């Protein structure tokens, strides 16, 4: 009976998240410098109606909204995987410096070569390097607790400094081309990077679902997980590889958008409460959060556009501080 209730709750939560995401996407398509009425929105999407509306919706806003949803989902899924593997809910790509390292590598490719596929590949390399460093440095101390996080903070600081060095060394054109990556923005996405991300997200999501049962057992201690038949090393390596793939590809599109990977899984966990790792729900929540944050960034100081990374940082920071100030944290240390 309880099992059934939990099932219902999960389905209800997923449906609610889908509804929220759809609403956010619709609003993001409709609102902006040129407002499209809701009935005109459907016409514009299906290629009828006002030519101006059609252009704004199809050419300008739709790619942006899709890119936002994809990056949000990728960041959130990566965050959820990494939190589960590290058994530390602060262990999200943004906080332990993986975003920054991916950015540094991607910027290196832009100021260095300028091949269109390179940023994705380079960002992947950066994400992999930083993950290896963070988890490697954790060593015998393990990944629980705050020391692991502070070590990641150091890695992120170094990567950020390297990015700045590269940006200040190159010609102004190349620096401008690379700039959006440094703050986290959907403004300068390249179509190639977005399609690569879409493919990667599908692959990563499938892989995460396949790993789902094993990931659920990871929530217990190692001996329990092993007794339940989980091959720990393999599951950890595969999950981390997934997280690296998702983070790297997402950074190549939007740069280091922080806090999505922290907030979205938290929200999904609060909604689902099933003792399972809420993979799909996290991805949906991340997509919705990212699209909403981008919409807020576009509208808040219009006609000025605030990068989405700033909005997520400002929203996420108070929550993170609240986690830290609370005397005991639920699933940490």
């Amino acid at each position, binding site marked *: 009976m309880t099992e059934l209730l939990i099932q219902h709750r999960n389905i209800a939560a997923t449906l609610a998240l889908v509804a929220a995401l759809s609403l956010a996407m619709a609003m993001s398509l409709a609102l902006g410098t040129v407002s499209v009425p809701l009935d005109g929105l459907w016409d514009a999407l299906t290629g009828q109606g006002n030519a101006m509306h059609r252009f704004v919706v199809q050419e300008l806003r739709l790619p942006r909204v899709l890119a936002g949803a994809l990056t949000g989902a990728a960041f959130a899924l990566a965050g959820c995987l990494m939190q589960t593997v590290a058994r530390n809910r602060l262990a999200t790509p943004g906080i332990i410096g993986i975003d920054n390292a991916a950015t540094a590598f991607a910027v290196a490719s832009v100021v260095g070569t300028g091949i269109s596929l390179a940023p994705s590949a380079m960002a992947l390399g950066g994400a992999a390097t930083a993950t290896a460093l963070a988890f490697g440095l954790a060593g015998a101390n393990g990944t629980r607790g705050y*020391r692991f996080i502070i070590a990641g903070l*150091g*890695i992120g600081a*170094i990567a950020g*400094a*390297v990015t700045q060095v590269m940006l200040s060394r190159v010609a102004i054109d190349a620096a401008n081309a690379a700039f959006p990556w440094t703050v986290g923005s959907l403004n300068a996405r390249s179509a190639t990077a977005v399609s690569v991300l879409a493919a990667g997200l599908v692959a990563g999501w499938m892989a995460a679902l396949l790993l789902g049962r094993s990931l659920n057992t990871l929530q217990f201690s190692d001996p329990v997980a092993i007794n339940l038949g989980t091959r720990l090393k393999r599951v950890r390596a595969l999950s981390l590889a997934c997280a690296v793939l998702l983070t790297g590809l997402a950074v190549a599109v939007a740069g280091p958008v922080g806090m999505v990977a922290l907030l979205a899984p938290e929200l999904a966990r609060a909604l689902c409460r099933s003792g399972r790792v809420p993979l799909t729900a996290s991805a949906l929540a991340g997509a919705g959060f990212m699209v909403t944050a981008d919409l807020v960034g576009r509208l808040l100081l219009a006609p000025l556009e605030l990068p989405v990374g700033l909005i997520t940082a400002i929203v996420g920071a108070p929550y993170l501080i609240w986690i830290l*100030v609370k005397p005991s944290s639920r699933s940490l240390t």
Partner: protein
Amino acid sequence: MTDYACQRTPASRALVPPLPVAVFFVLAAALASLLWGAGPVGAVEALQVMTGQGSEEARFVVMELRLPRLATAMATGLALAIAGALLQALTRNPLAEPGLLGVSGGSAFAVTLAILLGASSATMTTLVAQAGALAGCALVMLATRSRGLAADPVRLVLAGATVTGLLLSLTSVMMLADQRAADEVRFWITGSIAGTSLADLVAVLPSMAVAGVLVVIVASPLAALSLGERAAMGLGHRPGRIRALVVVAVALLVGGATALAGPLVFAGLVVPFIARALAGPDIRKTLWLCLPIGPGMILVADTLARVIGAPAELPLGVITAMLGAPVLLIIVRSRRMPAL
């Protein structure tokens, strides 16, 4: 009485070998920062200027550009190193660092806000920066009172880093919203002492002097406080007053340094770390060693910033982050976090 007690503790070491070496190091760093720069004036020409020869152009570069910059770098380094050492002793946290804990961030935020609201002058910047730093310090002290953060030194730093991130994001929003403010703070905000004039330095000096007096007053009581609150009270000190004085000193120092060089992260972490490694945990000896090592480190970082990117310049904050982040990793990785 306290002197006697501390000299007998086994961990305290003699000051004599490290201090002269550190002084020699800062002199060498100062000479290097006069000799090399981003411009075409090289070491030989600079030496000629110093002996009273050399071309007019070289004389201008060395005397009017590099010399004020040298002074600014030394003041900044000194202030940040002392502030870092004080803050670490006060919070008993080897990771407490003005930049990481949000004190510099508060300072930068206050300055940008003031410029956004229409203010613009050198002395105003210093005052506003110091007010912002004071608010940041108060926040840190408040945070150490909360049970969650006091229990774990690393957690405090993480909270501080989050506050810093939040403040920098808000600062970026202000910069995006106001082009004039952005132009005024753009280079400064990443941490740089390029183009500072002696007037900027002079504006900061009075408050630095006040802070210096405070440090002299507070050093001995702070050493007593490191023995524990009760021991300090038994020795006739009042912990509450000591803490208040230290907070004011830190705010004056960090605010002054931030007004000069922008929010520099990690500078206040590295220098006290080295000083403690050389001189042991006594705060008075740490402070003595910070006097030469602090300016020396910023001088080295600034010279590197000029030379690595020549003919362009790197922001100073980039170099301090590169030097400081590994030290952060070392401290966090050490099996037993060096207790204060």
